[in-house]
């Protein structure tokens, strides 16, 4: 199995209940892998385990040549992992600019330049650069969460349901940007419930049900109307 981000034999349990069961997947550079699954399938648990925010057991977890298993979330981030969590989780009391700046390890001039780059990429945020993040709309907060992750120049970007709660057109915009981010060489792992939208931009898809991968393959070969897929996504 090749890929910049490699996961093998990953399991997560909460007090004995398995939420992710022996999952393996790989995300190559420049590709989007869609992680599909119904409510409670284990998508968020899988992403959080890779980021290091929930304990897990894993046979192999690596990013490029770096072994991530056993590293703290901070060190995984340093290795090139960036995370856009479920519910966006922007820092509400920090301004838009501060939210983007806060995760960067660089001198002030370099930080300023990279923030400016992000604001150019997300013009909606540029107008609100000095606003506290809690004042933003849901779509703007989602853009901010992505900008905050992207400004760290990750090798792999993990996103948890970025379209949740967004108007269709805004969600469309978010997904277009994800495609562009991947085309720049970033490995993107995208957890989504909206299969149609995710499959439209993804290269590959894996379907998670009750913590296990039950189906995987090229996104182009999976139809969102496939009865097997819709059956799995219905839970």
């Amino acid at each position, binding site marked *: 199995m090749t890929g910049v981000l490699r996961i093998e034999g990953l399991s997560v349990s909460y007090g004995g209940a398995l939420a992710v069961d022996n999952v393996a997947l790989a995300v190559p550079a420049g590709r989007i892998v869609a992680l599909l699954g119904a409510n409670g399938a284990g998508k968020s648990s899988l992403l959080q385990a890779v*980021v*290091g*925010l929930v304990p897990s057991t894993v046979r192999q977890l690596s990013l490029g040549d770096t072994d991530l298993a056993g590293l*703290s*979330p*901070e060190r995984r*981030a*340093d290795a090139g992992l*960036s*995370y856009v*969590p479920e519910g966006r*989780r922007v*820092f*509400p*009391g*920090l301004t838009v600019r*501060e939210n983007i*700046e*806060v*995760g960067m*390890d660089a001198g*002030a001039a370099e*930080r300023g330049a990279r923030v400016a780059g992000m604001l150019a990429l997300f013009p909606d945020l540029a107008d609100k650069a000095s606003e506290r993040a*809690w004042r933003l709309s849901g779509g703007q907060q989602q853009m901010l969460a992505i900008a*905050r*992750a992207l400004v*760290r120049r990750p090798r792999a970007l993990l996103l948890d349901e970025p379209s949740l709660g967004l108007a269709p057109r805004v969600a469309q915009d978010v997904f277009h940007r994800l495609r562009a981010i991947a085309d720049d060489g970033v490995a993107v792992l995208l957890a989504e419930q909206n299969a149609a939208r995710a499959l439209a931009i993804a290269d590959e898809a894996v379907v998670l049900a009750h913590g296990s991968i039950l189906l995987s393959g090229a996104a182009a070969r999976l139809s969102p109307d496939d009865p097997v897929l819709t059956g799995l996504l219905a839970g």
Partner: protein
Amino acid sequence: MVTAQLLVNALALGAAYALVALGFVLVLNAAGAVNFAQGDMVMLGGVAAVTLSGLLTLAGVRLPGVVLLPLVVVVSGLVGLLVAALGFWPLRDRPPAAMFVATIALAAVFEQSAMAFFGPEPRTAPALWEGAALMIGGVAFGRQPLALILVAGLCVAGVYLLLERTQTGRRFRAVAQDRDMARALGIRAARLVVGAFALGGGLAGLAGALLGHQFFVHAGQGPAYMVKAYIAAAIGGWGSVPGALLGALLIALFETLVSAALSAVWAQALLYLTLLIILLWRPQGLFGEAIGQRA
């Protein structure tokens, strides 16, 4: 009657309480839990000031308060690190109540140790700025209150600049708002929390040394300072920095002005009544964010 002197005294007391409350709120935000040893860290600062100046006098050195204070701040910062090492670090993945209980235990240890080594009788810390009262516009002002306002004001301003204008401050606020998310962005959250304890300790110790000249230092005074920090934070809005500063000032106004106008007992009673009214009227405190605004 409210005189200019009384107002300056109230402001000086409020400035010292503001240091205590500021340290309390910084740790509260960073660790997400109450540091119950904050009051006894104030007491230890006073003890450190008295002891250090005593030792130096024995050695034949007489340091002015301005030189002594940085020493006290360093010692108190180390006490803060000790509280972090014993009361926070081993419990960092436990619920906040664990740290609350651990720091209650530490507060008791500090108090008993001070009682044992320093003795129960009150002592006076050296003045920051000695000499006869200054005449300004025909009114006499004590030097110590003026110096206290200046030093505390500079420290509060310094902490404000640190929080609002530096990358470290930004990171500190991010950790306070969402520790896990901050860690996922590579921010060394635990280090920042430990730093907050050191800073909180330094501020508490500074306040103890500053207050110890006018109000004595004694081993049993920690809990009273603790209650003040707690009330200041509750009035101002749990976790709000400007709120805690305002709360501290309000407490000092009651203790000085209301106390002078009525009596110390009435001042206490009215302070708590005001606290109740504020919390009934605005449960989130004066500067508290409405529920839901905070993530």
